[in-house]
């Protein structure tokens, strides 16, 4: 019960911080020098990007723990971290496209390293979720998705450097490297907001996985076959 209360508090705190940070970002922070008001998208875009990668990092840690100890708790947390990471990843891609359109006039560009990198991250970890959906045996499901998570995470720096070299001659200036102090505040608040929210979401998703595994364990064979994975 204590753990559940802590995660609920984290979730509430996350929402509050996100609302506060978004308010400041939308109505208090000044427009950026070149991108004007469009830069306000960055106040949610960058926090989602940081936390997506953070979730994937946690997933990697949970995957290693799952492979080493075989305890279901690590598998459940890993599933939560991958799924929440993918959700944030989808978000940052959508936000990125909404940023690209007014900035460069196009919805998508292969010239922006971060956009391409984020897209490949999405494919890698969405694949892990797909693998999980297609394996019926619970023991194999846990082991194989942990393996896929480890492999996907090891790939992250490789993909990043590869895409960077690939685009090194055609780098498009995307986000400002140096920021006004007034702009750093909403970004930081939102970063913590998304972090706490992600914490709550991961815990909830892990709990869902725990209940499903408990249900399947005692289910009759017919029930396992018929019951869809909603």
């Amino acid at each position: 019960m204590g753990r559940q209360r802590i995660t609920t508090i984290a979730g509430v705190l996350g929402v509050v911080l996100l609302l506060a940070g978004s308010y400041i970002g939308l109505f208090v922070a000044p427009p950026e020098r070149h991108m004007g008001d469009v830069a306000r998208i960055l106040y949610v875009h960058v926090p989602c990007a940081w936390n997506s990668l953070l979730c994937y990092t946690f997933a990697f840690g949970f995957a290693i723990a799952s492979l080493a100890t075989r305890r279901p708790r690590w598998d459940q947390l890993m599933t939560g971290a991958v799924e929440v990471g993918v959700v944030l990843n989808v978000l940052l891609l959508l936000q990125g496209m909404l940023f690209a359109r007014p900035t460069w006039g196009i919805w998508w560009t292969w010239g922006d390293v971060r956009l391409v990198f984020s897209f490949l991250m999405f494919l890698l970890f969405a694949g892990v979720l797909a693998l999980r959906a297609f394996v019926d045996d619970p023991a194999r499901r846990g082991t194989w998705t942990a393996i896929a998570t480890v492999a996907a995470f090891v790939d992250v720096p490789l993909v990043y450097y590869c895409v960077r070299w690939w685009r090194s001659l055609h780098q498009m200036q995307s986000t400002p490297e140096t920021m006004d102090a007034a702009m750093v505040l909403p970004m930081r608040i939102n970063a913590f907001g998304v972090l706490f929210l992600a914490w709550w979401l991961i815990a909830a998703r892990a709990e869902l996985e725990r209940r499903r595994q408990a249900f399947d364990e005692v289910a009759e064979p017919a029930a396992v076959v018929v019951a869809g994975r909603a």
Partner: protein
Amino acid sequence: MRVAPEGVIIGGWSFVVAAYGVTAVVLVGYAWSLRSRLNRTQQRMQARERDHG
């Protein structure tokens, strides 16, 4: 939305609103989907406990 001669983008609020809107919809939607899946699994477990006594 227009670009001033110095290269500053003016306006673009529709994209900003869309970005924040999409963020809210996705996060709330995912949280809601988790909640309903948790409840559904809970109901199935309770139903099975009732059936099996």
